[in-house]
């Protein structure tokens, strides 16, 4: 027992000496050494370890971090440094640079009793000087060169010209700026750094910019451009692999390309959403033919191999025509090729800008202001008016602002898939900061554009410099005018979404184009959650022309302004990495007609009664989309020319403008295909034009039913939602006004086609 007692005592002493973390006289203080972090990139996390050890093998922990004289408090183990965040676990850390400045901090390590301090030196991270203004990537509330001091000064002078004294004018300008500044909302972005943190930067992907051109030698694009792979479709050019533009006042494609894949961390300009993606340019808009169109979908002969990691074709273009185009089966077959054959059969994604005609197009003149569409918040041109927006193989992309809400211009429709940042005009609200034709001799940032604005647009010297200071030659942040701060439109939204898709496919190259759609639908952000319905009062009731957000029975929420919401790169990449679903081959039904013979359903004027149609679908398909095809006629919907062979209609009909269509799925989800008050002015057209047709074999796409079951009864209602003349004038038909249609429009056919898994 004694021996036992002695032994136990020895053990107890030994244990006490070990457990007291050196409370005894023999404890040795921790030993530390200078630590350093270098070679970092903005927003890319790096792991490291504080150099510390303890001769006693005591457990060590970081007990303080000081940056200069400031002691920094950790929140959940994360220290907010002047140039990044430092997440600490034991002696390990993850540093994520948020600025390109260097710093040095003092860390203190303790064994519980004794401590030791040393320095952690953090070298400046590689970055891009304009990255901090790229709110679409990470929104900190930055102005992106809009709402500038020069603009403020302009406003003060403007108010003074209204006979306000200096003080009052400044007060007025300040109040106006405060209203405009409400669009600056931190956090309303694509969450791109989170994607980078997961290791996705666009590596091993290719994006094709189908546009006006692409300046191959641009300082911030060149390193990402695949050599000798671009196409110039203009016949007989010296180098058909060089689509570099010759335009004087900006090249659309060059700016689009920068949004997708401007080179990152090279100390030049900003960077693209997917800064490690590779680029090919095709100047389809500069020589539009069927051949160029086919090649721009990667058909044999385009130089694109089906084995290549071709992630996305971006198409920031479209037709803005005040009439409905017949669905084009030939175009659909071309679109299908890119989605089915490329990337070893997994398909390339096609992103398409939804259009900039929410408030107005160009050929309807004042129609959508006079008929109330603009005030009500109804889209003047519906995205579905353009056949390529209604195909199963393109993703239609809408545009949102730096407050997350709908831009003033983004064309709405049930066909929208997702939205992405694009902003307003870069003057009173942020637009995109992206690449521009190099030098101040050409481009959006150029002497030529300054002259154009000052002398043609505003008729006022200095206007351009006041409102677009970054674009004005001589700006300190844009000394060679190689960048612009005023690029916008759904032309910007589509490439931003394309960049996110490149990130997804760099994270998981096994995803098919349909997998990408599923992930985008599941991961996008519901912006503007309070987006309200728009209700119209007709003679006998109320018609909801815009539903706001609609949650379908599969749990997806869709909005005709936003699709499934704004793309979230971080979430999308996270889901991409974890994706295991197998969708199988695409199932697509035949067109299911409402009847075997032509219909003759009258659409009552100004009535919620409408013409009602039911179509039974028997296909067992989980929906990835549904298309609806209509023929709708009205004898007043005719096209004419005057003696000078100019389109002319002295008084035109409201028949097309008044048309509204709603669809209810078998599971009870409602989708508005046409809201009424849209610019359906011209008779339908396709390979020919169709007198007396509002819609001729016109196809609408709705994404609102994504994930629902297709099988069952689809209910369609076609309405006429107005009973009055519209006092709008001019436009493509040079009309003196629109007379309410005297005879009802007639639905002569309706059909449904569903597709999915």
């Amino acid at each position, binding site marked *: 027992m004694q021996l036992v007692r002695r032994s136990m005592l020895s053990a107890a002493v030994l244990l006490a000496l070990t457990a007291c973390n050196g409370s005894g006289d023999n404890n040795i203080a921790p030993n530390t050494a200078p630590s350093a972090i270098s070679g970092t990139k903005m927003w890319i996390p790096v792991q490291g370890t504080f150099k510390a050890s303890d001769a006693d093998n005591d457990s060590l922990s970081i007990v303080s971090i000081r940056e200069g004289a400031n002691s920094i408090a950790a929140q959940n183990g994360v220290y907010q440094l002047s140039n990044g965040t430092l997440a600490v676990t034991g002696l390990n850390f993850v540093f994520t640079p948020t600025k390109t400045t260097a710093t040095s901090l003092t860390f203190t390590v303790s064994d519980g009793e004794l401590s030791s301090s040393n320095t952690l030196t953090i070298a400046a991270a590689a970055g891009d000087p304009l990255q901090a203004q790229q709110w679409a990537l990470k929104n900190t509330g930055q102005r992106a060169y809009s709402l500038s001091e020069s603009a403020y000064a302009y406003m003060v002078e403007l108010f003074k010209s209204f006979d306000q004294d200096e003080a009052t004018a400044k007060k007025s300008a300040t109040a106006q700026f405060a209203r405009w500044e409400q669009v600056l909302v931190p956090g309303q972005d694509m969450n791109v750094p989170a994607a980078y943190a997961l290791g996705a930067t666009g590596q091993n992907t290719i994006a094709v910019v189908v546009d006006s051109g692409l300046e191959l030698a641009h300082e911030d694009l060149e390193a990402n451009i695949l050599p000798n792979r671009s196409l110039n479709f203009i016949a007989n050019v010296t180098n058909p692999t060089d689509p570099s533009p010759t335009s004087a006042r900006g090249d659309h494609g060059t700016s689009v390309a920068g949004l997708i894949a401007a080179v990152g961390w090279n100390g030049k300009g900003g960077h693209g959403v997917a800064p490690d993606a590779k680029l090919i340019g095709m100047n389809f808009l500069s020589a539009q033919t069927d051949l160029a169109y086919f090649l721009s979908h990667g058909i044999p*002969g385009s130089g694109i191999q089906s084995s290549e990691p071709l992630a996305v074709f971006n198409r920031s273009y479209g037709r803005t025509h005040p009439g409905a185009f017949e669905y084009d089966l030939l175009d659909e077959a071309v679109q299908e090729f890119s989605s089915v054959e490329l990337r070893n059969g997994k398909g390339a994604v096609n992103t398409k800008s939804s259009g900039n005609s929410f408030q107005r197009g160009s050929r309807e003149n004042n129609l959508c202001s006079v008929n109330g569409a603009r005030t009500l918040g109804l889209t003047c041109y519906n995205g579905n008016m353009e056949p390529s927006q209604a195909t199963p193989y393109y993703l239609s992309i809408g545009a949102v602002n730096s407050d997350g809400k709908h831009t003033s211009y983004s064309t709405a429709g049930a066909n929208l898939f997702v939205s992405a940042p694009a902003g307003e005009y870069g003057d009173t609200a942020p637009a995109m900061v992206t690449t521009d034709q190099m030098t101040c001799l050409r481009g959006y940032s150029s002497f030529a554009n300054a002259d154009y604005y000052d002398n043609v647009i505003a008729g006022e010297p200095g206007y351009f410099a006041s409102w677009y200071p970054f674009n004005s030659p001589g700006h300190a942040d844009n000394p060679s005018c190689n960048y612009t701060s005023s690029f916008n439109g759904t032309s910007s939204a589509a490439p931003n979404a394309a960049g996110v898709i490149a990130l997804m496919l760099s994270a998981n190259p096994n995803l098919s184009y349909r997998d990408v759609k599923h992930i985008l639908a599941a991961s996008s952000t519901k912006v503007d959650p309070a987006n309200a319905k728009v209700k119209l009062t007709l003679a006998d009731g109320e018609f909801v022309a815009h539903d706001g957000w609609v949650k379908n029975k599969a749990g997806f929420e869709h909005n005709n302004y936003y699709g499934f919401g704004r793309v979230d790169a971080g979430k999308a990449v996270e889901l991409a990495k974890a994706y295991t679903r197998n969708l199988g081959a695409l199932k697509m039904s035949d067109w299911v007609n409402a009847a075997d013979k032509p219909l003759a359903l009258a659409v009552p004027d100004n009535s919620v009664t409408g013409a009602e149609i039911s179509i039974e679908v028997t296909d067992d398909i989980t929906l990835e989309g549904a298309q609806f095809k209509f023929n709708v006629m009205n004898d007043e919907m005719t096209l004419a020319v005057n003696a000078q062979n100019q389109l002319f209609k002295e008084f035109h009909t409201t028949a097309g403008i008044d048309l509204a269509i709603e669809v209810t799925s078998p599971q009870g989800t409602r989708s508005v295909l046409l809201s009424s008050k849209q610019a359906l002015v011209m008779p339908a057209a396709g390979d020919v034009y169709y007198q007396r047709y509002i819609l001729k074999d016109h196809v609408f796409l709705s994404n609102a039913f994504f994930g629902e079951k297709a099988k069952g009864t689809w209910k369609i209602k076609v309405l006429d939602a107005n009973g009055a003349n519209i006092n709008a004038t001019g436009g493509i038909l040079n009309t003196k006004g629109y007379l309410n249609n005297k005879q009802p429009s007639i639905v002569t056919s309706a059909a449904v086609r569903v597709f999915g898994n």
Partner: protein
Amino acid sequence: MKLSTLFLATLVATTSPLVVAQTSTPADAATAPQTTFGVYQMQPALRAVTAEQNSGSQVVEQLGAMQVINNNQAADLADSKVQTNTVVRNVLTGELAVVTGRISVLSKDAASVKAVASRLGLKQLHSFNQGKVLMLQAGADTDLLAVTEQLKAISGVTTVRIDVLENKQESR
């Protein structure tokens, strides 16, 4: 880049819409536009040439590599045929376009199309999507309306389209 409406627009807006006359729609004094094919109307007073072929004529419109100029030897419309470099006008947009001499075909029976195309002297440029889409090249003097009619007559052919060079799509 699009132009901002800015605040000035709201400050100076003075919209005063006309009141539509409450009369019945007069019979259209105008007539329906005539087309040669599709939505296109032939423009025999114009012709398309390359810059190298243009010996100083004023360019009416530049379309890709083609320059549209006045045709000094204007042919009678009735005697004209649609062929490579024929200038046409899109009646919907009012824009000029130039016929390329190529024909796009969508069909379910590529073999039949190829056989007929060969008989018509059309060269196959491209075929893809399991042969559903074919692009054919006609000779410089081929009457494109005539050959397209024959192609449309083939069983299984859905679409036959005369390719034109045209600024249909716009950047956004």
